[in-house]
């Protein structure tokens, strides 16, 4: 494995790291940058606990190399949470969505990506997007409610 210098733009700051050419972004975030809000759970791109935004698009951080993210804008849950007044974070809080909370960074990132693309997603579109993130505690009913309510808040703002 070759070590290479990579500059990662994470949550608005540039980080220069020495990384293996094939190391997934997930492990650079967690072990090298200490951004542990992005979670490991399956490592094979199924569970979605490691979802981050790459130039605004949802990406599973265990399935993309850190090297491939050089020069792109990476947003993790720690960065997203800085927008504390975002409707999604408000409804997530109001509906008390998390239980163990382990998958919730992935859930919130995915929901954010969905609502960024479409302020008024259909039930089917919510299904398609959110079925990519698994939750063992069974918070799905509340996630659905939180997305629907956030969508209403965003649309009300669009109209005003």
């Amino acid at each position, binding site marked *: *494995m070759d*070590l290479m210098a990579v500059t990662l733009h994470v949550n608005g700051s540039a980080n220069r790291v020495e990384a*293996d050419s094939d*190391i*997934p972004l997930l*492990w650079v975030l*967690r*072990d*090298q940058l*200490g*951004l*542990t*809000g*992005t*979670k*490991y*759970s*399956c*490592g*094979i791109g*199924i*569970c979605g*606990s490691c979802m981050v935004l790459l130039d605004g698009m949802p990406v599973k951080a265990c399935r993309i190399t850190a090297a491939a993210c050089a020069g792109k804008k990476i947003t*993790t*849950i*720690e960065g997203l*949470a800085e927008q504390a007044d975002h409707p999604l*974070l408000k409804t*997530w*809080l109001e509906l*008390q969505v*998390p*239980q*163990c*909370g*382990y*998958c*919730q*960074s992935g859930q*919130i990132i995915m929901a954010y990506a969905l609502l960024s693309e479409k302020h008024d997603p259909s039930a089917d579109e919510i*299904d*398609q997007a*959110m*079925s990519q*993130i*698994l*939750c*063992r*505690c*069974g*918070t*799905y*009913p*509340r*996630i*659905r409610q939180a997305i629907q309510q956030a969508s209403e808040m965003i649309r009300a703002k669009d109209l005003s």
Partner: protein
Amino acid sequence: MKPFDPERRDFLKKSALSAGSALVLGIAWSGEIAAATDTTPGFKPNAWLKIDTDGLVTLYIAESEMGQGPFTSLSMLIAEELEVDWQKVQVEHAPLDPAYGFQGTGGSRSVRRNWKTLREAGAVARQMILAAGAEYLKAPIESCQAQLSRITHRPSSKSVSYAELVGRAAEMPAPKGVALKQPEDFRLIGTPVTRLDLADKLNGKARYGIDTKLPNMVYATIAQSPVFGGRVKSFNDSEIKQRSGIIDCFELEEGVVVVAQGTWHAFQARKALKIDWQGGKTAQLNSDNIIQRLSDETSQKASLILQRGEPIAQLGSALKSINSEYRLPFQAHMTPEPMNCTVGVENGRYRVWAPTQSPTSAMATAVKALKALMPEFSEAELEARIEIVTPLLGGGFGRRIKQDYVTQAVKIAHRLQRSVQLIWPREEDVQHDHYHPLTQHRLSGSLDQAGNPQVWHHLITGLQSSKYGADTLPYDIPHVRVEMLRLDSPVPIGPWRSVSNHYNAYAIEHFFDELARAGGQNPLELRLKLLTESRLNAVLQRAAEATAWHQQDQQRILGCAVHSSFGSHVAEIVELIRLDEHKLKLGKITCVVDCGIAINPDTIRAQLEGSVIYALGAALKPPIRLNNGRVEQHNFHDTPILSFKETPPIEVIISNSRLDPGGVGEPGVPPLAPALANALLSAHGTPVTRLPMKLNGAS
């Protein structure tokens, strides 16, 4: 848990708390390895709470927070009597200490066993603050009142905050006995308060075991024998050690360990391991033959669990009889956070961050592991060198009652004599779980001419199976015999959310419908007629009303089941919608729970929703299968859990009462699978004798 003892009020100052072991040895932990030892001034009347000079209240919760909500529910119990402002309450896991009794979370017991103790802990503290406040206000204590972190002299409305009273309160004698509030005076209990662990679970700051980072820490992973009990014969250690980022590679009793600079390097090296395994206890066994093989080998006989009425053999043959055999598979826990444990090592001492359901067991496990490596020390000496820290748990469901990852991490840390984090990759987690056992249920029953069940016979044969859930048949059937043949299991078995209630309730509740239908009776009506537990009867009645049970037709088919477990009573009704002649889909699931007094309705709702989804996954998704002694599955692709789009609408109805609280983490699990099977029996006319169920076509 030991009864509350006010004499232990200043225990936090005096006892050799685990953090105090530093003093015992005269060596201080350095850097980040040191847990935050709280030395700030404040009022600490007992092990459960502290109020600091800013009025911030810290509560120490001795049950593991794994999503089921004890941080919040148990804090409510203390805060209710302490009369503090909920906005000023923060919470953390208690250290391991005898003051808390056995620290182990399971059996949906958290609220039940703390119900009185924690209210008393809060009340004692409140009385001391009240006495301090009266003194400060120069008023008789009888005319003062504690509310929202203030003591108020009612006649004059003069008041003083708890923050200002911290010093004085600590000097007050602890009352010998305290009166607890009556339910009508509850201010917090019964209200859906904000979870105390919520904010950090939305911003990435929540720290789970896997998020522990120590200075100069290295990362380890393990490969254990795919055949249970197998040992390493040889492996390519020199090749592995040459890989980039690899620090060490060695054999433990449990398997081969790789130590690396990062988790990724360790995982990649684990994949490159070529291990020659030998032996193993399960080599010839698979899911289809294991019950038969183990039954043939055992000299054990089935033991009697429950007997009522006449011995079964003496009953006449004039009754109409039916027989069934169900087989329920192994299931994995699939906690979202894989097994892991981090150990800080310094000067011969070990600080262990264990995301465990039992810090007490983690300590015993760590002591045992070190005793084998350092026999010259006594257990007590070793215990003084170990500290257990409990971070948040990314799911538990019973898996983290077992401590195998703690044993391994302690052994690895001892060998390396440096701080190390052990992480199992998901594949290791799936193949080395302590599984829900495989069980077989032989059932027979007889009906009289009017279609009323007269005879019930249930033989459970299972791997380390348990009688709970089958030891009290809740129906008025005159002749009952329940027996169990409990087989020693070469496959690791452990508690899985609701434990034996899951398989035993399936057998009882599905066979009940078979019997009812054989006698031409409506299964819900027959239950209401025969249920001997009035609370179970009441929840079923309520579920029947909520779902309009009697308005079923070919397009809308319902199945019901009931079960009492962990002190609570639950009825569930599953709705199937017929899309066309060949296709059914899940409709709404209705769950009615009587868990006594509802402490935090929001948590109860969340736990019941989660239980339904957990159980639905087990009913519909491929289970764990043993093949040639090894688990065939690897990861979420072949051990799927229920997904977002597969989750039907769920309605939870809480039947509130003033009775003592029952558990809520598990009781929602057992009725789900039989309720679904009963709906399918109604739709297709055939019982569901094997899992996973298929909504369409024979199962």
